[in-house]
């Protein structure tokens, strides 16, 4: 039977659609909590989607799948790594399933688009991604950022490089030409000036580029001491593969936010050996909460966790703890509790910057091992440094957070 055949039907449909957000939490009010995991299970970041869902489901399972007597239901939706799809999935889940909390997205571009919906529909979003806009120009009361700020990442990574290679002074950057890469390049310039590095060149490459030898030929011609990869994901994997073919051992390859542990398996050991990489998470982090997490994860999934799983695990855990602290499952109360909260997370003692909603957390640096030093197939690297210097407040563009 066709819908909305008459003008009256059309008007009624429009009214119902417009009014739906005003009656969002039927499922929630019935005594349950629906928590969304809006994550890419297809597309460029497909490798991360299932891992994010694993982390979220484990956190929930370890919490007894309930909070204060309310059953918690996990809703996994595919954002395809595309902003438009992410926005649709969030809206559908909020309207149809009463979702008031969600973990997402893995990609900055998707997460920032979803953040607009979160502010409008008053949904609590715990995001990941490398864009500074989450806690900067596009900050919002309903969005929290679990991943480190790009300044923190860049500072931790280059501080280690300066300490380990005091004679290396010149940097050539290869930058992904979108919001994530631009943020990293901005902070490369700032941190390089702070630490006394000289930038001798930069090339922006389009997202999804699969041919890097022309950029690498140009970079090598500039004879830098360091090739800094301000790019990530499959782009970074391909660029590093092709750089390995040049056999240029006197140029150190450094990735401040380039490859998380989830993707290191994509490179052959001889390609990744010696890489210096910043990490949001690494399974060797020595904290009680992380040991518990790694133990439970390994037992359940027969694999070590990476950044994607750790982010979702810790974010879900923090939301559940905030609900208990607030003694409420209402979003506004939970946000108030989160803003005041400090918890033992997988990375150590963690808290939230009330002014920006950036999680205050350390960032880690690893050096990839040669095959001969690997104790098991997933023993990719050793932790060599950590840093937690936050973004200088004068650089932050988040105006006053709006009232709830």
């Amino acid at each position, binding site marked *: 039977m066709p819908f909305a055949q008459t003008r009256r039907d059309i008007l009624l449909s429009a009214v119902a659609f417009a009014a739906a957000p005003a009656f969002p939490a039927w499922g929630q009010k019935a005594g349950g909590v629906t928590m969304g995991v809006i994550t890419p299970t297809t597309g460029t970041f*497909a*490798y991360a989607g299932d891992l994010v869902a694993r982390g979220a489901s484990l956190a929930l399972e370890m919490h007894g799948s309930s909070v204060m007597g309310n059953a918690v239901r996990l809703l996994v939706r595919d954002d395809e790594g595309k902003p438009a799809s992410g926005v649709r999935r969030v809206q559908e889940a909020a309207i149809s399933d009463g979702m008031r909390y969600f973990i997402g997205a893995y990609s900055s571009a998707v997460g920032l688009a979803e953040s607009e919906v979160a502010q409008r529909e008053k949904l609590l979003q715990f995001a990941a991604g490398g864009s500074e806009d989450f806690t900067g120009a596009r900050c919002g009361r309903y969005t929290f950022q679990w991943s480190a700020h790009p300044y923190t990442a860049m500072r931790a990574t280059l501080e280690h490089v300066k300490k380990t290679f005091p004679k290396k002074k010149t940097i050539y950057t290869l930058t992904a*030409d979108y919001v994530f890469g631009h943020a990293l390049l901005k902070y490369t310039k700032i941190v390089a000036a702070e630490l006394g590095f000289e930038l001798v060149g930069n*090339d*922006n*490459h*389009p997202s*999804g*580029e*699969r*041919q890097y*030898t*022309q*950029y690498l*030929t*140009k970079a*090598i*011609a500039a004879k830098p001491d360091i090739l800094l990869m301000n790019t990530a994901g*499959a782009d970074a*994997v*391909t660029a590093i*593969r*092709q750089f*390995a*073919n*040049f*056999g*240029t051992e006197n140029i150190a390859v450094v990735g401040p936010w380039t490859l998380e542990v989830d993707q290191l*398996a*994509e*490179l*052959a050991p*001889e*390609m990744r050996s010696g890489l210096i990489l910043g990490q949001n998470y690494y399974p060797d982090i020595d904290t009680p909460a992380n040991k518990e997490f790694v133990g439970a994860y390994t037992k359940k999934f027969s694999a070590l966790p990476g950044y994607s799983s750790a982010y979702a695990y810790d974010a879900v855990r923090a939301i559940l703890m905030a609900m208990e602290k607030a003694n409420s499952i209402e979003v506004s109360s939970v946000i108030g509790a989160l803003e005041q909260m400090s918890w033992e997370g997988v990375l150590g003692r963690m808290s939230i910057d009330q002014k920006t909603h950036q999680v205050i957390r350390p960032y880690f640096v690893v050096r990839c091992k040669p095959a001969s030093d690997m104790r098991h197939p997933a023993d990719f690297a050793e932790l060599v440094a950590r840093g937690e210097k936050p973004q200088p407040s004068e650089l932050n563009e988040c105006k006053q957070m709006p009232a709830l």
Partner: protein
Amino acid sequence: MLWLISAQLVNGIAIGMIYALMSLGLSIIKGLLNIPNFAHGALYALGAYVCYSVSSVGMPFAVGLLAAFLATGLAGLALDRLAIRPVGENGYLPQLITLFGAALIIEQLLLIGWGTVGLSYSPPLILRGAFDLGFTVLPKYIAFASIFSALVISAVWLLIERTKFGAYVRAGIERPDTTQALGIDVDLLLSGGMMLGAGLAGLAGGLALPLVGATSTMGGDMLGIAFVVLVIGGLGSLYGSVAAGVAVGVVQSLMTIAAPAASTAIIYAVMIGILLFRPQGLFGER
């Protein structure tokens, strides 16, 4: 500046030869069957995976390349018999859609067989490192890949231009009805051409393995470039795709000097420009 231009020229020619190899297979299939093979990218990916699997169990890389050629050649034959022929009588569009579907099926099979994590393979020891040309460094593997591509393209040229099989193929491309009337089994010819074209896609995938790795979606990335090369070279020209492949590699590489972020976009701009002023492509005929 001159040395930087020279360096990018060397890189562009080397990369362009790999593009040319990929596009030559596409051009053969287009010429013989008169359809753009939308599954060509998936065959390229299949070739990379086969080459990886054979090489990573200790077989020489050359055996991996041969296996990639043979396996994708057989996959091409299967496509011809199971996907293209059964819908052939219904016209052009069903063939296109069937090939598109076949590409999706191959990609999913790659995911099921090899997983979602991309695979890397380092070239043999003798091909690691780079040649110092004074004004630039050229990775040994890229030099090898471009020379190897040139040899394969030459061998295909000899096969098509200097053998009886090649004469039949050319006849089949230009006058299929007359060729059939002369008692030549055009069906068999088409299957042979499909196997050759598909095999070249797989060989290109194997050759690209140390440069781009193996992922199930890698075919889509390369297919776009291969079609650009095909259009620039001219849809009716087997060898136009070779010249166009090298030209695309060079333009892409040189563009990095002036506007790096546009180095991929420029090849599409060039294609649009050529379509506007010479719709049949550089070497095609009206």
